[in-house]
Each structure stands twice: as C-alpha cells, then as structure tokens.
C-alpha cells in the first residue's frame, strides 16, 4: 500500500480517505456513518498508530522535564515528583468515567452498537488509572502525611470510583447476551457518573487532608511553570495513550462481535 511508504504520504492518505468517507456519507449524517462498526474499524485502525507515537513523544518530553529540568521543591524536596504521574492518572480516571457515561447515554438513546463496545473498551484503562491514582497517592501520603491511607472525602470517593469500574467490568462480563450486557453496563456508567463531580469538589466541600486543586480554569496555577509544564505534558501523554489504546481495543471487540459479517471475512488479515 502507498500508505506505508512514508509518514508524510501516510498522513495524506488518512486525510484523503476521510474525505472519501465524508463524500460517501453526504446523503446521511456523518456521525451515524462513523457509528457503524465497519467504518469505525477502519478509522480507528488508521488513527491509533499516530496517537500512540505522539503519546510516546509527549511521555518522554514530560519525564525529561519532570526529572531533569524541574527543580527541587522547597517544602517536599524530591518527593513531590510523584505529582508527574499522580495528577495525570487521577484526571484520566475521572475523564474516562465521564467518557463511559457519554457513550452510554448515546447507546441508550440511539441504540447504536458501537457505544457499548466503546464503553467496554474504556473500562479497563479507567480502572487501571483509578488504581494508579490510589497507589501513587499512598506512596505520596506516607512520607508527607505519615499515613498510606486516610478515610477522607477525596481518597474515599476515588476508591468508590475504582469499585465502580470493577463493578462495571464484572457486571458486563457476567451477562452472556452482549447487547443486554451493554445496556445493564450503560446504567451503571450513567448512575455512577454522579461520583465524578463529588471527587472533583470533595476538597472544597469537606475538610480534608488532601490539598486543593493545583490547576484550575478560574485561577492562575499555584505551581512553578516548569513543574506545571512537566505535569501537563504527562497529562496529555496519558490522554493520547488512552485514546490510542481504546481505539486499538475497540477494534478487537468489533472483530469479535461482527465475526460473521462479510467485511470481516474479507479482511486481508484473515486471508489464507
């Protein structure tokens, strides 16, 4: 294929095929055109390698800033460097849950098959980031607060988020009928979404050991700019990592569910 010749040509081909898709779907709504598993499979397959490459570059840049450029903190010494994974992991754990709720609303409203697959593809990564948020938080809490764990509002609501992810995964995999499993899971994802604003505002609403937000939309950040940039680069890297991995994983789910469709049987990967 011409697409594999060079990266520049590759990008051009991706744009070109996007154009073709738009032209083809001019009669219908392009969003619904992409909601078809067949078209989304192709789109996801072209997108994930680029996203994964960008995630790797941002990760390296973020780690370099975080460990080689950012200075020692005047209060916490070198211990503060945990922030470079703790905050991005915590953000992603909340963002992914909201994304699952979003796809679930779409799935229940329009009865699109892709929605359930996207929600399922997101859940394991969300659970992982929720776990990492708790793990890195414990390793940060021990030297700074003197405790691995305290039952305060921020920590407890994040623990509930972790259990919500596990509950979603357990529930959907316990139901043999995949479409029924999707719908049951969608309800958990939507109802559980109430926990996300509770986590976010917990440091404001209750007295807690956990510090307030270091970055917010309304105030200027309370961090030195090199530290802040290191953290933001890591957050972008985790974000792109998530999108790339979820697109990769949803392709596996599409293959599994659409195995009897003619287009799957015609895939070059399946030819003898």
């Amino acid at each position: 294929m011409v697409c594999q010749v060079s990266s520049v040509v590759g990008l051009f081909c991706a744009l070109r095929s996007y154009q073709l898709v738009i032209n083809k779907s001019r009669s219908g709504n392009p969003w619904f055109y992409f909601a078809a598993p067949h078209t989304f499979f192709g789109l996801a397959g072209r997108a994930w390698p680029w996203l994964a490459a960008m995630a790797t570059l941002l990760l390296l840049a973020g780690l370099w800033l975080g460990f080689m450029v950012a200075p020692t903190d005047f209060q916490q010494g070198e211990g503060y460097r945990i922030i470079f994974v703790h905050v991005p992991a915590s953000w992603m754990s909340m963002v992914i849950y909201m994304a699952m709720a979003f796809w679930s609303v779409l799935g229940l409203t329009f009865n699109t098959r892709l929605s359930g697959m996207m929600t399922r593809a997101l859940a394991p990564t969300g659970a992982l980031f929720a776990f990492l948020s708790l793990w890195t938080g414990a390793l940060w809490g021990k030297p700074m607060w003197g405790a691995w764990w305290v039952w305060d509002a921020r920590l407890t609501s994040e623990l509930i988020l972790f259990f919500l992810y596990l509950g979603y995964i357990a529930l959907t995999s316990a139901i043999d009928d995949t479409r029924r499993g999707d719908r049951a899971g969608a309800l958990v994802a939507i109802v559980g979404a109430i926990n996300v604003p509770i986590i976010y505002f917990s440091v404001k609403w209750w007295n807690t050991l956990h510090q307030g937000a270091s970055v917010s939309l309304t105030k200027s950040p309370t961090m030195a700019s090199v530290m802040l940039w290191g953290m933001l680069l890591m957050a972008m890297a985790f974000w792109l990592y998530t999108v790339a991995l979820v697109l990769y994983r949803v392709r596996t789910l599409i293959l599994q569910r659409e195995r009897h469709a003619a287009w799957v049987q015609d895939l070059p990967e399946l030819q003898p």
Partner: protein
Amino acid sequence: MIWNSWTDFWAMGGYGVYVWGSMGVTFGLLLVEVVQAVRAQRQVLAQLRAERALMDLPSEDML
C-alpha cells in the same frame, strides 16, 4: 543538569522508594496493559482465521 551523580538521582533526596515505587508501578502496569491488548487482538484474529479455514474446507459428504 540538576543531579550531581546517578546515585543522587536514584536516591531522590531520600524519597527514592516512594518516587520510584510510583513510577515503576505506573509504567509497569501501562506496559502490561498494552501487551495484554495486543495479545487479545492476536488471539481473536487467530480464532477467526481458524473458523474461516473450517468454512473453506470442502465438506466430505458433498463429494
């Protein structure tokens, strides 16, 4: 360069266990997740290929 030596870097001012415990587990688990996703897709593709081979086989009763 903000570190005087590699020993300095790994010690993290006495917080080495906590900092490297966080980084190690984070990137270790992300790597495990990627490997698992790749394995799962290969498994599904292998299964679909096997099913296809069965379908393409000429049935003996037909001969």
